[in-house]
């Protein structure tokens, strides 16, 4: 049997064209029940699962069929009715080649290989897909005029938010600009609270008072509307980490448009001078509103713009590439080497905001090409399928669950009442006695509590 397994193992290697090893099939241990859809909050500290012990494997399907949706005939305990393949069939961990990152002022860069466990893969898939569906739902609600004002969508860029979160700890800090819904989710806020904030209801994460650009969470500082202003804030958060000696880092994100702001260079200077543990991150989605990078920046090597600060340019469409790069960056900062500048090459499918169709300054063909060749979610899914890490049915199930979650969240967001007028003047000051606030006319004396 071991011989048989070795043959199959080798066949798989040839088919996938990889030199990497799948875990030897004989290492599998018994799985008695299928795992639940993994929780968002699992940390990197989780130890690797031991692969399940194999049931008697005498009827392995020929290699070619392993990537198909066809059911295996194995009848093992714990096999779910919907998925006719047992989890014992799946590769529990694989190593993938990832693109080499360009580096600036660094002797070495992030590794060229990334390990991915099945559990991680399904989790990253689930989170990215949730962000994707949430943003598309926001698009829908905006077109129905249930969401109003500014709405900057993140679809296409999911690998950035998910890859970063996979590399840092919940106790680290993160701040970004206005394209923030994805980060609000990865930093721990439920979809329904995000959508309810977009629809301006009392159940929104900021009780309806902030809107799309002003959502906050523990160790997540928004959501900032003024282009570039969040970068000095991020450096300040890093200063607080250093001051408090807590070994935490701050990821301060900005776009290719903001990359030319003077206050960024002021922040770079101080962060480098004082060796602040700040990971300055440019999400380069090629367009600052309607202006392409070539038309806005004299130098489009955003990872080099920190000049005296080391930099790394990362494939922002590959969640594993992002994760490995940020693990590297976090280690750099935590070891006291000072700040680092990251550039994530990514792409947004939507226009700048909901009021921008996004096709006057770029072609539909370009958008389509990125969608078909570099979509981050598709890329991860295909990797996992072609390495037998999950089945098509599983992904379908996850999709269905997400669709349901987002639909319910949208239901909540459209039915939750608006904030009460009594709340209008609250939250001006923190920890203060109630004060009187002038209304629209001298007789309107409104009350404000902290």
């Amino acid at each position, binding site marked *: 049997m071991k011989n048989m397994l070795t043959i199959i193992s080798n066949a798989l290697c040839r088919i996938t064209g990889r030199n990497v090893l799948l875990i030897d099939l004989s290492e599998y241990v018994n799985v008695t029940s299928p795992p639940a859809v993994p929780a968002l909050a699992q940390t990197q500290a989780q130890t690797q699962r031991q692969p399940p012990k194999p049931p008697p494997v005498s009827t392995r399907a020929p290699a070619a069929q392993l990537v198909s949706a066809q059911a295996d005939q194995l009848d093992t305990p714990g096999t779910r009715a919907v998925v006719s393949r047992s989890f014992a069939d799946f590769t529990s961990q694989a190593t993938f080649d990832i693109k080499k990152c360009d580096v600036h002022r660094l002797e070495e860069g992030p590794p060229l290989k990334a390990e991915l466990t099945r559990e991680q893969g399904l989790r990253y898939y689930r989170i990215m897909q949730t962000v994707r569906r949430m943003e598309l739902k926001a698009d829908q609600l905006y077109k129905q005029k249930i969401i109003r004002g500014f709405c900057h969508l993140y679809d296409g860029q999911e690998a950035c938010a998910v890859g970063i979160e996979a590399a840092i700890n919940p106790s680290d800090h993160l701040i970004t600009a206005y394209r923030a819904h994805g980060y609000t989710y990865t930093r721990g806020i439920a979809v329904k609270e995000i959508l309810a904030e977009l629809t301006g209801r009392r159940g929104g994460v900021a009780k309806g008072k902030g809107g799309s650009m002003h959502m906050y969470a523990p160790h997540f500082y928004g959501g900032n509307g003024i282009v570039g202003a969040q970068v000095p804030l991020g450096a300040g958060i890093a200063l607080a980490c250093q001051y408090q000696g807590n070994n935490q880092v701050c990821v301060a994100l900005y776009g290719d448009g903001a990359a030319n702001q003077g*206050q960024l260079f002021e922040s770079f200077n101080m962060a480098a*001078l004082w060796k602040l543990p700040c990971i300055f991150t440019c999400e380069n989605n090629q367009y600052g509103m309607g202006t392409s990078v070539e038309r806005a920046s004299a130098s489009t090597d955003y990872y080099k713009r920190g000049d005296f600060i080391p930099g790394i340019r990362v494939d922002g469409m590959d969640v594993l590439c992002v994760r490995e790069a940020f693990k590297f960056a976090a280690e750099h900062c935590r070891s006291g080497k000072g700040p680092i500048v990251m550039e994530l090459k990514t792409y947004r499918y939507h226009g700048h905001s909901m009021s921008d169709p996004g096709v006057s300054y770029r072609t539909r063909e370009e958008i389509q090409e990125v969608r078909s060749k570099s979509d981050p979610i598709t890329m991860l899914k295909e990797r996992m399928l072609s390495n037998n890490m999950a089945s098509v049915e599983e992904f379908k199930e996850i999709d269905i669950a997400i669709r349901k979650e987002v639909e319910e969240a949208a239901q909540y967001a459209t039915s939750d009442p608006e904030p009460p007028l009594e709340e209008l003047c609250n939250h001006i000051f923190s920890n203060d006695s109630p004060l009187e606030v002038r209304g629209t006319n001298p007789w309107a004396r409104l009350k404000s509590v902290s």
Partner: protein
Amino acid sequence: RLKNIVLGWNDLLCSKPMMVRDALNQAMDEELERDERVFLLGEEVAQYDGAYKVSRGLWKKYGDKRIIDTPITEMGFAGIAVGAAMAGLRPICEFMTFNFSMQAIDQIINSAAKTYYMSAGFQAVPIVFRGPNGASAGVAAQHSQCFAAWYAHCPGLKVVSPWNAEDAKGLLKSAIRDDNPVVFLENELMYGVPFEMSEESQSKDFTIPIGKAKVERQGTHVSLVSHSRYVSHCLDAAVVLAKEGIECEVINLRTIRPLDVECIETSVMKTNHLVTVEGGWPQFGVGAEICARIMEGPAFNYLDAPATRVTGVDIPMPYAKILEDNSLPQIKDIIFSVKKTLNV
């Protein structure tokens, strides 16, 4: 003149006069000692001992971690200070003068002032922005602007403007202990002026509440309402007017936002006349706001004449001494305005 009067009393009563800059220094020293989250950053605050020596000795005592010299990058370091406040520290961000705060004003208003509201009470920003405000002597147009009205316009900020050393100490301590963004407007010409300090101000827990004005001189004929350096001018004018039988009530606002309207109203309901005095420009200024608020409240019916505003001249500040002197309220302007208001 006032300085001599104060020093004369000092010799008599043996109380220790203190200069405004030393009172500010003491306030920061005490608060740095009390709470290790408090730190000071700004240009020249550490090794230079402060551009105006307000932070003298603090770097020697507390070191690089707590007293931080910044490069000349206001927008950057103000933003860094705000970020640090969001992440749990209690920064004091010094602007060498408030004229330079204009470069950082987006961070003060959009990142600091509005955040607690936008986050519906989730994210507080306990920060103090301090530095000299308004006219100095011979520093010309770009270095002489008063920002009281600009900052006091914005919800989410507290704006404080101390006059004497006691104000300076008590209000700065309150500002540092406040969990909200406070704009603390000092005055360069007052830094070197000594004042008697009360017994209670010697305590390390001495604070003056933000939002409460003080009646510095009781009077019956007219309410003179002012802030910062012009409180001195009002008191001096009151001495002169007293000789002619006009008793002025002098109110030291201490805080611009929130404005202590009640104190002004109570006074106006007693004196029936109101004159505001400020160094800033007249249009859309502190005096304008006071007049509007009095009109909207019970004190209006007690006015025997329209309120009068004494302000800086509505021009950029000139350099030549004669021009500069005539660009700002002088004691004779206050006296003149009081008499006009009283129709005497």
